[in-house]
């Protein structure tokens, strides 16, 4: 059975399987979502109208036994940025889709009425049922009920109350292996796009799925073996390494020491109270409380950076508290209490809000006087406004830039309308170049992987050095390629240092595709994805002026280094320029 596309027309509630075009054969994940969006979506359409489309695609090796490969991409025109969007998540849902040989679900049109639907997808059909009974309900209870109704073997993706409000900071929520609504394709308002069409949940049941077709078993096996060896021996990715021991939050103390952990809406780069919300403290509390650490966000991940945070006695599990989320809802709001952060993260998951955008929003809301910095309880109350669908809740659900405008705040940490993540670009310039120039809007993952050495063109590694165009471009290109494979970005740490690991990645791709790619093909493949995304953005009206950081990063010095973001516009334009 060949791969298929499931095309879902929400105008007339029709879902049908189509052949997967032969010229898409080498496309998966981000390569596929961005290609379909660029081909099928009018760049000038309203992101929440009938002419936008939402595409969900597992990576090329997702669903196989390749380690740490259970990621998927969600693509559309973003209501937050107005440009193309790829949001990425790790979840068993992606593996189920891949095993059912569904290369992509394309959601199009818009249901006319005010009802919401659930789409149930099995091997040979896709059916709609009413989802109205879940409207206005939190996702933790809802996911429990959905698993009861559909059985605990299904995969679920869905949108919450924030998306019902068409909030531009709403994500699409996927279940983790425990069934918690905690794995988010969070960024860019992808949740609002799904909700705008009248779809609330997709439930996949992979009973009878044939599994992923592997055209060259030998190459695949050899590649998976090489990659597994790299991941289990490298200091960062091996069992007992940083990601496995502490999760991504190990970065809290590291970036605070580096003077680049933004505090109180990006007004300082260091505050030692951040130590109280560090990965080390969190790991210890999780152990005491009987949560889980380490944990895999999808079966088959051997890095296992994930975890399950909970209340004392193992009660009320939340899921993972990622570094970005802890920072956004913690230090960025002057909140240094892990239980407050945990409850804010729970509220975001329950409402279907992107934690980074929600934290950025809360930072400007606090600066605008809606709460005092540090007041975690008031922050939770503000999220109740979203839950209760009040006018204030509607403002907050639209994210950082919208809230800042409503509150008269001029220090607005966004690029292309999307909130900056947890590294201050005044202290770490390279990531600032990525924030400015990625087609995605401020996004750390866009230029985060693989090293300059592999790509052959160096970039200087001093965080204060301002010639960062080559470095950022190489990282962005490599990341785009990884996002197409379905591998987790964190494999980059190992494949960067261990050449056989990268060979293993390419071998597994060759195994699945029956191709003869080499490591040298990776940059060209990644660049072609970025080219497609930039083409869409250009047609949507983006120019170099959109590849800039907000003014206050250029004028306001950040302690402790007392530096501004001083990368020149010419250098920024050099990333994609001639």
């Amino acid at each position, binding site marked *: 059975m060949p791969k298929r596309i499931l095309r879902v027309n929400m105008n007339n509630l029709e879902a049908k399987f189509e052949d997967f075009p032969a010229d898409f054969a080498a496309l998966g994940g981000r390569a596929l979502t961005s290609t379909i969006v660029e081909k099928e979506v009018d760049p000038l359409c309203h992101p929440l109208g009938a002419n936008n489309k939402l595409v969900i695609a597992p990576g090329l090796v997702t669903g196989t036994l390749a380690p740490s490969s259970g990621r998927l991409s969600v693509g559309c025109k973003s209501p937050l940025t107005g440009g193309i969007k790829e949001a990425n998540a790790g979840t068993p849902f992606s593996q189920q889709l891949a095993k059912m040989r569904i290369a992509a679900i394309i959601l199009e049109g818009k249901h006319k009425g005010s009802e919401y639907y659930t789409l149930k997808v099995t091997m040979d059909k896709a059916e709609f049922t009413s989802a109205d009974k879940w409207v206005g309900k939190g996702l933790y209870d809802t996911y429990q009920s959905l698993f009861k109704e559909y059985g605990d073997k299904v995969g679920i993706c869905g949108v919450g109350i924030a998306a019902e409000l068409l909030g531009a900071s709403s994500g699409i929520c996927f279940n983790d292996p425990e069934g918690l609504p905690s794995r988010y394709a969070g960024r860019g308002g992808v949740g609002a796009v799904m909700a705008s069409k009248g779809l609330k949940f997709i439930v996949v049941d992979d009973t009878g799925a044939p599994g992923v077709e592997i055209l060259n078993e030998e190459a695949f096996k050899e590649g998976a073996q090489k990659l597994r060896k790299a991941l289990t021996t490298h*200091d*960062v990715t091996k069992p*007992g*390494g*940083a*990601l496995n*021991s*502490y999760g991504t939050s*190990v*970065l809290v*103390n*590291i970036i605070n*020491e*580096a*003077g680049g952990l933004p505090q109180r809406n990006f007004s300082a*780069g*260091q505050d030692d109270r951040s*130590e*109280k919300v*560090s990965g*080390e*403290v969190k*790991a*210890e509390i999780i152990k005491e409380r009987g949560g889980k650490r380490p944990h895999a966000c999808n079966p088959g991940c051997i890095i296992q950076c994930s975890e399950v945070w909970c209340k004392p006695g193992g009660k009320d599990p939340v899921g993972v508290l990622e570094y970005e989320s802890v920072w956004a809802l913690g230090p960025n709001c002057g909140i240094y209490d892990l239980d407050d952060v945990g409850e804010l993260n729970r509220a975001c998951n329950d409402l279907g809000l992107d934690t980074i955008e929600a934290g950025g929003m809360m930072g400007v809301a606090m600066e605008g006087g809606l709460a005092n910095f540090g007041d975690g309880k008031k922050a939770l109350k503000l999220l109740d406004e979203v839950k209760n669908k009040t006018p204030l809740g509607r403002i907050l659900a639209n994210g950082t830039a919208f809230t800042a405008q409503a509150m008269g705040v001029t220090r607005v940490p966004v690029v292309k309308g999307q909130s900056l993540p947890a590294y201050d670009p005044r*202290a*770490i310039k*390279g*990531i600032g170049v990525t924030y400015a120039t990625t087609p995605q809007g401020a996004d750390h993952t866009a230029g*985060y992987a693989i*090293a*300059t050495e592999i790509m052959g063109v160096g*970039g*200087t*590694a*001093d*965080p204060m050095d301002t010639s960062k165009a080559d*470095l950022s471009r190489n*990282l962005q290109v490599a990341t785009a390629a990884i996002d197409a494979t379905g591998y987790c970005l964190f494999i980059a*740490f190992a494949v960067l240092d261990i050449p056989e690991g990268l060979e293993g990645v390419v071998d597994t791709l060759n195994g699945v595709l029956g191709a003869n790619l080499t490591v040298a093909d990776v940059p060209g493949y990644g660049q072609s994805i970025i080219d497609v995304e930039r083409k869409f953005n250009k047609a949507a009206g983006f120019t170099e002026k959109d590849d800039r950081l907000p003014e206050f990063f250029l004028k306001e010095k950040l302690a*402790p*280094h007392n530096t501004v973001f001083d990368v020149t516009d010419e250098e920024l334009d050099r990333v994609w320029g001639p």
Partner: protein
Amino acid sequence: MTILVKIFGDLRKKIKDVESDGALPLNLHMNTENIEYIKDILQKLSIEENETSHIFVNGVYAGFNKKVKDGDRVGFFSKNQALLYKWYFKREEDD
């Protein structure tokens, strides 16, 4: 004349006689006597160089040969905390 030395993660276990507060870093106020370089601090604390990962001096990513002085803030991370986008950081040394 002291240097603030912050000890993170499992390295805290190497420091005897100092009460640790949960998993928070240890803050040691070390006398600068006989301390010129980062490596001198490690020696005083009986920490091997290969037991460390990231080292910061006043927010600057630093190596074993970085000079230190009165009033500096130094952070040592344990081996199993290695997680930096090393392409964003270069170790600063002084010799």
